[in-house]
């Protein structure tokens, strides 16, 4: 149950705070260490508040072979403070690498130009 509850919290709020961990431990009759351990273990349960947009860039081998390291460097320079860039290890889109996930949507064959277009789309959507 704990995993599903944390998934729902991240879905709704984007992250898990210390206070949330305390409340969950109390509600589920677990120790804070138990809850903390599960939160720390899984990558999806981030413990810092993310930006308005979350861009995950695949860092695994198939995407490396198609320039994901360079793309990641480019991406960090291309986005504003409202966008959080996170690593992800494989989106299963390895035949159309490099792959990124923008706010939960997987996008393939992303080069620097395509990335800039995605960022422009995000900005456009916010206006």
């Amino acid at each position, binding site marked *: *149950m*704990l*995993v*599903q509850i*944390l*998934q729902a919290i991240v879905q709704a709020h984007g992250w898990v705070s210390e206070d949330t961990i305390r409340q969950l431990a109390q509600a589920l009759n677990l120790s804070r260490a138990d809850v903390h*351990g*599960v939160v720390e*273990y*899984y*990558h*999806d*349960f981030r413990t810092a508040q993310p930006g308005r947009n979350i861009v995950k860039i*695949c860092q*695994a*081998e*198939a*995407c*490396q*072979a*198609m320039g994901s390291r360079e793309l990641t460097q480019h991406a960090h320079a291309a986005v504003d403070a409202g966008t959080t860039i996170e690593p*992800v*290890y*494989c*989106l*299963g*889109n*390895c*035949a*159309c*690498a490099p*792959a990124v*996930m923008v706010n*939960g*949507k*997987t*996008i*393939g*064959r992303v080069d620097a130009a395509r990335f800039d277009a995605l960022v422009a789309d995000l900005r456009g959507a916010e206006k």
Partner: protein
Amino acid sequence: MSAVKVYVPRETTSVSVGADAVAVAIARAAKQAGASIQIVRNGSWGACWLEPLVEVDVDGTRIAYGNVAAADIPDLFAAGLLAGGDHEKRLGPINEVPYLISQDRWTFWRCGLIEALSLEDFLLHQGFKALQKAWEMGPDAVIDAVTASGLRGRGGAGFPTGIKWRTVADAAGPQKYIACNADEGDSGTFSDRMLMEGDPFGLLEALAIAGFAVGADKAYIYLRSEYPLTHTILARAIETAREAGWLGSDIQGSGFDFDVELHLGAGSYVCGEETAMLESLEGKKGIVRYKPPLPAHEGLFGKPTVVNNVVTLASVPNIVNLGGERYAGMGVNRSKGTLAFQLAGNIRRGGLVEKSFGVTLRELIDEYGGGTASGRPVKAVQVGGPLGAYLPESQLDTPLDYEAFAAIGAMIGHGGIVVFDDTVDMAGQARFAMEFCAIESCGKCTPCRIGSTRGVEIIDRMIKGEEREANYDLLVELCDTMEAASLCAMGGMTPYPVRSVLKHFAEDFASGGDET
């Protein structure tokens, strides 16, 4: 005139390169033209390099168009798309596309062919025939057929499936489970995902057959969270099957009770290891368990459990339908049947290629893949995910056979083939192998938890050219320790890619500084 069927995949790769927008554009163009069409969302045929791949049903022949963008649609309509009109993107009938016709489609035969979420279409294409046949055969005969097929676990370990099923069937106790491993974390692999997105009912049928064979009334699918579209499709398929009486109690009046629960992971590579997956399914951290006890004896919630990969399970319905001997007739040596190889990374024609074992890497990479995407020479090929060895060009003629790969210190794993061209820095890839292990280690055993971090440090020193020989020896010794003393394949096999780089690409360590 009846509506023209237009197939546009609803599958992660196809959607990732614009399939949804293509479907919208086709619907809009048809409306403007006053044409009556029906858009069918099928799975992918696996020719990822052609996605989005659109097909139009012209008098029963499906005419394919490759790399279709939404912006192409007005032009395609002007060229007579709905009548299969000629256009530079036209590939011809889908059943004549060379990439597809030369494959041995045993497990993926429905992928791309049918509307993924149409139970009706599934039933028209032999859906649930194997389950009904299994009921007639009885559990023992089903397990015998799976044993006779020589099917081995496609998740990577290659354990004989029939033996696993027999162990669980023979285990004591009224409650048993099926746990389907859909935590496809290896880079370069996507066959589980394609199967689940293209033939979700096929997986449900396979689970029910497994449950019937071993006496389990419940299956859990552990799906990784990186696959949100798969989750949507699978959840809908489970609901549809339940509503139609193909899941639940007394399925189709057979007296057989069976249900499936879909569980979403939360981002963890190690959860693809079977015991870590069971821990995670129980709502805990995905920490690897000691074996024994084997999951077949004490698995999920302490009950006898069959843990099988998606593709392993999905190979079973045709084994039941056509007989285990038919399957065993394909492949070589102890690698029977087919494997869905996945061509990925720097490759011109990437995608899923289901072939009998025995095919060579070179055939797959050259004949199907068409070489690198960059057009540069192949330098290294990593087979079997992040724990698989990097093979140099000279080893590309190795036949894909579990034992032949083991003999060269490599593994086939889940069938992922990641191609790198000659611009790759292999010292960096060796470093990444250790780094990935450090990031993903569950932390239970020391060789993996600490060894991986030390490994990164040693490789960094080697790259800088510090005490190269001493560090080389230390790295080899560390690899020995990790391989011999880790609890699972995470720490135990991280040395594979590292050693392969030392063996075949040592010159890439030499560039970083002076020998001291």
